């Protein structure tokens, strides 16, 4: 119980600071406060001044952020400047699409990575190891945007591109964890004791490594979120990643802070759950 409270406290602090850091980062980036309207010759100087005045409420980042959080607690995330619609409404509209592709992509990527790592550690077939390493290495050497492009040409769904981005990371970590588990002294002792290989795998390798393997879910979620932005943009999928890209191009701070907070909430939740599962498994 104490560990749970400690984790929750830490997660909330990370969330608060994460949002603040994100807002500060954007607020102090070199081009903040200027937009395309500054270069539009059709606009009068008054119109340009009015456009610049739209940024006034965001000048003091701490005040802006505190006001933002106070409003956020009531479900009001502000109004997007570029879409001229409430941020919460935009997020609600786009979240299901991203959640679907992320859940499927992360799950498929994780299961494939785990299955290959387990098969490889158990059977020790050189060909399997070589093919899995080659596929993993190749996927790690291709940017997510290019994977998306490939899926776009092949008319494959977005979730497959996400799975392809997640798989190599999971395979690499899982293979390392399982190799470490197989090298442990108790596995040698179990083998010397005449236990069968399937039993060794289940009782002496997978069971002790389960917490670490479970924690890979957090890695899968983090990688999937990172990959979602380029993949959704390239595949023209109307999700949060594409919204983030549009917000970035339109220099829409309220929308960007909203998306940053949302993604941080999801990442922190996944990490906290994985941490708790790891600690629970070890206890």
């Amino acid at each position, binding site marked *: 119980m104490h560990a749970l409270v400690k984790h929750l406290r*830490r997660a909330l*602090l*990370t969330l608060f*600071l*994460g949002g603040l*850091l*994100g807002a500060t*980062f*954007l607020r102090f*980036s*070199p*081009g*903040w406060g*200027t937009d*395309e309207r*500054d*270069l539009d010759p059709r606009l009068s100087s008054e119109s340009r001044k009015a456009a610049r005045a739209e940024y006034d409420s965001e000048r003091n980042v701490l005040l802006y952020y505190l006001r933002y959080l106070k409003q956020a607690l009531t479900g009001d995330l502000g109004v997007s400047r570029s879409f001229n619609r409430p941020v919460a409404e935009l997020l609600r509209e786009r979240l299901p699409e991203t959640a679907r592709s992320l859940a499927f992509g992360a799950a498929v990527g994780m299961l494939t990575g785990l299955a290959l790592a387990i098969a490889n550690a158990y059977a020790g077939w050189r060909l399997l190891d070589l093919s899995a390493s080659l596929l993993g*290495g*190749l996927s*790690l*050497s*291709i*940017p*997510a*945007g*290019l994977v998306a*492009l490939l899926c776009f*040409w092949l008319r494959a769904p977005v979730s497959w591109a996400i799975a392809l981005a997640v798989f190599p990371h999971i395979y690499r970590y899982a293979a390392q964890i399982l190799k470490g588990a197989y090298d442990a002294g108790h596995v040698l002792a179990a083998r010397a004791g005449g236990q069968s290989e399937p039993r060794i795998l289940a009782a002496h390798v997978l069971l002790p490594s389960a917490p670490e393997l479970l924690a890979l879910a957090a890695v899968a979620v*983090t990688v999937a*979120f*990172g990959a979602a*932005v*380029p993949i959704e*943009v*390239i595949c023209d999928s109307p999700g949060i990643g594409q919204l*983030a*890209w549009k*917000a*970035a*191009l339109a*220099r829409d701070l309220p929308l*960007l802070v909203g*998306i*940053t907070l949302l*993604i*941080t909430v999801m*990442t*922190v939740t996944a*990490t906290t759950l994985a941490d708790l599962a790891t600690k629970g498994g070890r206890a």
Partner: protein
Amino acid sequence: MTPGMTPRMTKSQKAAAAMFLLLALVSLTGIGGDRASLQNREAIAAPPSVQFPLGTDDLGRDRLARLMEGTRVSILLAPAAALLSTLLAAAIGGAAGYIGGRIDRIVVTVADLFLSLPWLLLLLAVRALLPLNTSPMASVMLTFLLLGCLGWANPGRMLRAAARTAAGSDYVLHARASGIGGWRLFWRMVVPNLFPILLAQFWIAVPIYVLSEANLGLLGLGVSEPLSSLGSLLRELTNYASLSRNPVALAPVAVLVTIASCLHLLVNKEQTRSC
């Protein structure tokens, strides 16, 4: 690694190192030079020829020259960004692990914070927020500078753990008992033990930054025109009609995958060495 032992590379790692060096040398020789941004109006979207071995793009620019320039930008600036993030990680993580106590806890919290933020999204946003009149050179420098500044957290945590282990080791205790203390102890006893991890983290970061720039480039937020990078060259692939007409436009993909694969292969060796 045992001191004095020469690290051995496997055949595939030697091949990877040789391929990477070859690519680096070819791109650094300056082949292409000013031709990269030169428009040949009489040869718009031309197929491969003796004059233009990879053809020209839709603006009549020599693809090979642009590929050389792009490779040069990525090969020079990604390691520079990796060096920056590794140095930041060493300074922040190493010092925190050595000092311990409250500073260590604060650094761990800040590193956790950095790790839980969607950095690609923020990078995208900050890159998009750059002033509209930013020069191409400034934009490329800023892109890699941002990558370097944002990537310290992961290596920082590793270095912090290594510094903590080193700080509690017998030889540090012995040195302390001999009267060496403070920062002298840190520089003389702790930092040399962090070098293998620093080196491994550096090599891990390089392909990550090359690929991050490629992702930004594909989204149109990488290096600004007329300067090219491997990422900005990939944008041409979004035009499927032009690609099917001229498949040599895939050359940047081959170069990018070769560079990243070579670096990944070298990283595995470095990781093994650091453990």
